[in-house]
Structure formats: structure tokens, C-alpha cells
């Protein structure tokens, strides 16, 4: 018997990116790096800012779609540090931009993040990329 898949909002993540670094065509892929220099996140259970020093390693694949590989550090408004990564797919031809975020933290208040899987719906807005992230229940 099939099981239901339910989700609930976790956060909206807004990223500030700097000028891209076009690495170009490597043996595997065409690689572009989007440095993350800041941003913010907000949800019912956590909010704060994105620290500088992260980035998204974006590859162009043979079928014209992009794969994403992001790592950033989040700092909550009460000082907790959260290591966040995601991989994802962006397929402009089908207006599809989805990610699979993962979180790692030592802050007891946010330990629930260590135990959940999540899905992000991405959008490119004029101010930068925005990801609406939901927890998979």
C-alpha cells in the first residue's frame, strides 16, 4: 500500500550572490561558481542570516539542464550555526527548479534539522535566488 507524502514549511531562504566565476568546460562538465556573500532565512521555527563564504557550484549537463551543489553557513538570530548543503536540478525548459537541502548543527535548539529531509522550490528573482524550503514529514 502506498504511503502519503506530506510536507510543511521550514523556511524561505534568500541568497545574495556575487559575480559568477566561470570555470568553463572541464573534462566532466561546464562549471560556473556562484559565490554566496550573504542573505537571510526565515521560518516559523528559525530565522537569521546567511554568512559570506558559501557558494553554489553549478554544472551544465549534456541535456541542457543545470545541477546545483550548494554549501552555505546559516547563523540564527540567537547565534546558532547551521551547515547547510543542497544538490538540485534546474531545468529552464520545463520551469523546474527543485533542490534537496540537508542541515547539520550542534545547537540543541535546532537539532531537529539533523533529523529531517527537505525539498526546496527555487526561483530566480531580480534580487537573487530564493528557495522555499519544506520539511518532508
Amino acid at each position, binding site marked *: 500500500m502506498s*504511503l502519503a*507524502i506530506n510536507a510543511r514549511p521550514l523556511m524561505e531562504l534568500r541568497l545574495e550572490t556575487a559575480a559568477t566565476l566561470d570555470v568553463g568546460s572541464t573534462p566532466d562538465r561546464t562549471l560556473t561558481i556562484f559565490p554566496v556573500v550573504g542573505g537571510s532565512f526565515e521560518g516559523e521555527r528559525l530565522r537569521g542570516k546567511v554568512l559570506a563564504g558559501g557558494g553554489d557550484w553549478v554544472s551544465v549537463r549534456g541535456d541542457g539542464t543545470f545541477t546545483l551543489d550548494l554549501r552555505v553557513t546559516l547563523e540564527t538570530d540567537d547565534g546558532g550555526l547551521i551547515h547547510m548543503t543542497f544538490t*538540485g536540478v534546474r531545468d529552464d525548459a520545463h520551469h*523546474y527548479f527543485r533542490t534537496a537541502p540537508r542541515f547539520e548543527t550542534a545547537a540543541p535548539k535546532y*537539532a531537529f534539522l539533523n*533529523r*529531517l*529531509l527537505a*525539498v526546496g522550490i527555487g526561483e530566480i528573482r531580480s534580487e537573487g535566488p530564493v528557495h522555499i524550503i519544506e520539511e518532508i514529514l
Partner: protein
Amino acid sequence: MNTRLLMMMHVKVGTLLSIGGVPHGVRRTALLGGGAFEGPRLRGTIIPGCSTDWQLLRSDGVLEMDLRVTLRTDDGALISMRSFGLRHGPPEVIAAIGRGETVDPSSYYFRTMPRFETAHLQYSFLNRLIAVAAGDRRPEGPIYTIHEVL
């Protein structure tokens, strides 16, 4: 978030290799004995021998799963599937699973995020999607309800 059923996957467990305590937790490797999958757009079998779940029991009691399987559709296409997953729950429920009992899948958390790769044109839509699965650990092996994230 909207999803739709991609497939149901029935996995048969095979040999379990208990590697033991490693720096990150307790590691074990579960070789799959095969299995089958079926959904509206694809169906077929899991090829044993190159299908394995690499598991790590973390110090916080969460089981991390890194499943890598090769699927063969009923029309002969090969699909490589990887999924990262988490399983955790009340100690008594996890202990019952460990004893090989059937437990209510809603009594614990068992979710995975499958990704697919294929060269076969008919199934190339799989290359471009993110999926989410809910697992039900039966004594004979897990049953996954796999949904495509729309």
C-alpha cells in the same frame, strides 16, 4: 509542494555486512537480494549484485542510508538510482524493526530522496527530477512509495 506517484519499490534484503564502529558512528552495508518497482510510467526489477544500501547509525540514533541500486525496466533500459535517507523513531519501534517485526510505518520516520540517471530516451525525464520517498520497513525488506516532486 506538490508530488505525484512515480513508483512503488519492493526491496528484498540480502546479506548484511556489519562493519562496526567507525569515527562517525556504526557502519553496516546491506547487500540487496533484488526487488521490483512499478509505477504509471515505468516498471521492472532491481538487479542484485550491484545494488547496496550503505548505512551509518549516527551517535544521535539516526540511521543514515545511502542506497545505490541499478534498475532494469521491463523494456530493457538500465537506470542508476541513488538515494540518501534518514530513519529514526521511538527506541521501542526501532528495536521491534531490529527484531524483524512488522510495525506501523507511521510510527517512525523513514524518508529518502532518490535521484536517477539513465541514457534511455524514454526514461530521460528521470534525469531531471527530484523525488521523495516514504519507507515501510517490512521484515522481508523495505517498501518505498516514491513520489516525483512536481
